[in-house]
């Protein structure tokens, strides 16, 4: 499989049965099934499944999951999907094309909070041809269609109302969500009638919410938990070289430095470029993320098909050049209030960023707010002059990101609007041939690098530390930790 498999190299054969304790820093939020939430990574895709899975490295060739096959029409304006016929919900009811349609309709609603809701909104019609066949038509090409299929769980209409309070969380996946004590714990129990039940090894997974980083560590060290997520990168690093543990990461969070292009000094692209040069990304990587991050000047990874590798390191750390640019722009000494929220990683990042900006002659100021405040300000497009932002949308295709990532949206917090940007976006969406896509991406990349209204700082996965007795974990840059085939060796 394309996803990173942990422990699969081990020679042991899978052991059936057993229970794993998963220490997580954040509680589940089952009410938000359509949102991509880091909170839900540890359990979500063990309970819910989507139609297919997309490998970021090969986005054009997804793997089937609940859909057994699909066919996009020649004109790129419709798709025929064929579903597996052996899938049942945890209630025992058979999953049909109606459920898929229902799920997509829900995702389209504004209240779903789906980052990809722009995709179903553009659906012209969804026709249930047969219980296993669904036809969807659209008005224009849908470059983000597979990303949407990949991200959107198929939910049970009958029990959908139980999602909000977590009392009935019904998916089609290998495990059932039970015993939720908000803020404290929940359990996944093996679903015996899972369509691929023979692949499932574990009987249950206990999730223990452990908000404190040290507590997470001690849970792992003491053997109370076999796997943990939410450990800081620096803590995770302390397991390096200890062969009782395996350290890896899942998902990918974008950390960006956003700038308001409608006010001084960032209305001047030179200042923005100066900032991009000033950021000491490597230091941030080593001191804040214990080198687990991936330094990039772009939102799409170096592995993105069609990308020129050098672009990723376009802005290497160059304070002198940055200082010079600032001088040229006449922005020396400008105060830069930076809004950020209380996440410790962001906070540490802020300290280095502020230090970097001071170095080049700007005067940064801290404006630390809590998460809801930050979001409220973001929604109101009122984040001030500059801000630090993090978005967990690693692994999506560039065309999808242009719509789903707030900084890249047409209406973005940076208030960056230009006809040129619109034009280049459009060509990203409409390109269908490989070469067109490649050309569009290159043009977009050049433009984004030149204008840098939001300077990417780093992309980092969330560290996952597991006991080396735990095998068969599936992790991906998209985030979810899949334990379908996981087992504990004796």
């Amino acid at each position: 499989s394309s996803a990173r498999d942990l422990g699969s190299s081990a020679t042991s054969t899978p052991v059936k049965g057993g229970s794993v304790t998963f220490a997580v820093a954040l509680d589940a939020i089952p009410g938000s099934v359509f949102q991509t939430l880091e909170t839900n990574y540890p359990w979500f895709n063990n309970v819910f499944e989507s139609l297919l899975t997309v490998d970021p490295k090969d986005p054009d060739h997804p793997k089937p999951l609940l859909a057994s096959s699909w066919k996009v029409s020649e004109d790129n304006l419709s798709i025929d999907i064929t579903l597996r016929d052996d899938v049942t919900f945890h209630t025992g009811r058979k999953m049909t094309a109606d459920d898929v349609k229902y799920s997509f309709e829900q995702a389209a609603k504004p209240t779903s909070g789906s980052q990809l809701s722009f995709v179903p909104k553009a659906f012209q019609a969804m026709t249930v041809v047969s219980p296993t066949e669904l036809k969807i038509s659209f008005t224009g090409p849908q470059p983000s269609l597979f990303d949407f299929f990949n991200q959107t769980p198929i939910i049970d209409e009958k029990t959908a109302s139980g999602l909000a309070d977590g009392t009935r969380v019904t998916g089609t996946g290998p495990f059932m969500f039970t015993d939720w004590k908000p803020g404290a714990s929940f359990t996944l129990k093996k679903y015996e009638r899972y369509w691929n039940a023979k692949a499932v090894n574990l009987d249950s997974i206990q999730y223990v919410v452990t908000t404190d980083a040290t507590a997470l560590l001690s849970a792992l060290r003491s053997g109370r938990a076999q796997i943990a997520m939410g450990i800081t990168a620096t803590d995770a690093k302390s397991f390096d070289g200890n062969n009782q543990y395996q350290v890896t990461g899942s998902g990918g969070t974008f950390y960006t430095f956003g700038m308001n292009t409608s006010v001084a000094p960032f209305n001047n692209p030179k200042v923005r470029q100066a900032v991009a040069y000033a950021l000491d990304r490597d230091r941030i990587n080593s001191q804040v993320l214990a080198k687990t991050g991936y330094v990039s000047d772009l939102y799409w990874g170096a592995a993105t098909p069609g990308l020129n590798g050098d672009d990723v390191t376009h802005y290497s750390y160059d304070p002198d050049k940055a200082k010079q640019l600032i001088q040229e722009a006449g922005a020396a000494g400008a105060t830069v209030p930076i809004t950020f929220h209380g996440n410790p990683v962001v906070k540490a990042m802020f300290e280095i960023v502020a230090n970097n900006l001071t170095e080049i002659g700007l005067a940064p100021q801290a404006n630390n707010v809590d998460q809801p405040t930050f979001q409220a300000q973001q929604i109101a497009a009122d984040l001030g002059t500059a801000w630090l932002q993090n978005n967990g949308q690693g692994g999506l295709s560039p065309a999808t990101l242009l719509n789903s990532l707030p900084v890249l949206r047409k209406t973005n917090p940076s208030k960056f609007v230009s006809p040129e940007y619109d034009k280049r976006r459009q060509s990203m969406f409409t390109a269908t041939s490989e070469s067109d896509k490649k050309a569009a991406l290159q043009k977009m990349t050049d433009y984004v690098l030149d204008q840098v209204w939001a300077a990417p700082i780093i992309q980092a996965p969330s560290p996952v530390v597991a006991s080396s007795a735990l095998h068969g974990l599936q992790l991906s840059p998209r985030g979810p930790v899949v334990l379908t085939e996981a087992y504990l060796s004796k």
Partner: protein
Amino acid sequence: MGLALGCPTHQVAEGTGASAPSSGPLVLAERTESFVLQFLTRKIPSVLFVLVVSSIVAFILPRLAPGDPAVVLAGPDPSPATVEAIRQQLGLNLPLWQQYLDWMGGLLKGDLGQSYVLHRPVGELIAGRLESTLELAALAALIMIAVGLGLGMLGGSPRSRWARSIIDVFNTTFLAVPPFLTGLLLILLLGIVIPLLPVSGEMGFFEDPGISIQFLILPATALALPQAAVVARLLQTSMLQIRSEDFVDLATAKGVSPFRITHKHVLRNSFGNAVVVIGLRIGELLAGAIVVESIFARNGLGSLAVSSVQSRDYLVIQVLIMSAVFIAVVIQLLSEIVLAALDPRIRLGA
């Protein structure tokens, strides 16, 4: 800080003019009961006032902060439309007074409301976290009472200078050092330098009492010691002061031994004060639990309070604040009643 103690009322027992109250245990009990009732009736207006104002503040304050549950529910990168839709769904677009009245109406019916963010009944959420905090507070209260009374009595007894200076150092240190710092020191000392006890996490007492206690010892101690110092200091001062009263002299003049004087005369008279402080300190324990829970990574009510503030889960915050205020009021009333029960001079009605 202190309660207004009822003035000792002097009653004339001799002389036929004064109608001396008939006594006997039964009559006395009845009288006490009616005094308690009278006392409570007299207190009702001010208690109500405090509760109502608290409810208004608890309602308004979190809502003044930017962001609301809709923003939290809308996920990481929402659009304004999404947020607005969720707001509608939650009823957050209703006028404030209406939301307030709805909440109060629910409260009066015993309905604590539903969490906006978790969509669970608030009562259930709180119940889920209660055990952790109760265990912590209970053990801390035990330690506080044991250490506080123990040291207080030692300090208030005629001891060598030596013993008293040790107690003084303890008191001075812990009076100044809050639970939060005590906790950090304990973590460093007993968790890191000599790793004896787990420094974070927890386990329900009924799941495994042994392990549960291991997790509890450090946070409970951290929480208890500063309060114990307050109790000890107060008991000591009060005992030393009582010791200089004339009736202690009279007891000495009767030939009573120092030990008996301490127990029968000094302690008994200092106890009322001690009870009041212990009552107030238990309130402080609960308040201090917030930070201690955060340091020792316990999922109790404190962390629920902090996280619900951070997720703008209004109803949860409101109910938690109201519970805290309610507990404070009850403790205050209780300690006044207990004090009156302990001290024959104090009449609750007065």
